[in-house]
């Protein structure tokens, strides 16, 4: 599973729970590809995926969170997707 976190440098809310979210993803997904995308460098990719607000999280190319979720909310979403894939 590929997870892209779009952020802007110097944005406090972009990093507020970033490590917690990454730890949640690592715990649940064995073949995780976690990428942190500076939107200033990746604006075309962000537009391609439809990112409109920051920070945002895309899972496998789909913008799922338009702001950073709580770890619990994130975990629920990942579990839902893992069970769909299985």
């Amino acid at each position: 599973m590929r997870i892209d976190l779009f952020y802007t440098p110097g944005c406090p809310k972009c990093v507020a729970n970033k490590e917690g979210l990454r730890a949640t993803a690592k715990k649940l997904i064995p073949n995780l590809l976690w990428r942190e995308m500076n939107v200033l460098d990746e604006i075309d990719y962000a537009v391609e995926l439809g990112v409109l607000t920051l920070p945002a999280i895309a899972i496998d190319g789909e913008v799922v969170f338009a702001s950073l979720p709580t770890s619990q909310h994130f975990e629920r979403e990942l579990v839902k997707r893992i069970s769909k894939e299985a």
Partner: protein
Amino acid sequence: MSLTIGKIATLANVSTDTLRYYERELLIEPAAKSGGGYRLYGQDALRRIRFIKQAQQCGFTLTEIRALLTLRKRDEACCQDVRQLALEKRLQLEAKIKAMKVMSNALHNLIEACSIDSRPLDDCPILAALEQAIGNTN
């Protein structure tokens, strides 16, 4: 120096109706009212109106401009907050451009399909495609 609504509208190159609308939207307010009840504005209002116009040209809505003006007054706000709003606005504009390109391409394909311009209207592929699209949405 106080400026009447007519004077400041002329200086800012907007109509007086626009200024009254800005006032209803809580973007500007007169510094005072004259004895006769006329609105009077200070020089800072002129800067503010020009700021609003410039921000509108960059695609910001009046609600977003109000947020920008509020940020300017907040002691703890910094340039990063404004940058964040500007960046999100750019993402929204780019998304609109992308959608409009798709629409333009769809029209291009329809125009290409309608290369014979002497056909009767009943055989017009553009109208047929649009009617089919309407049928699909119903």
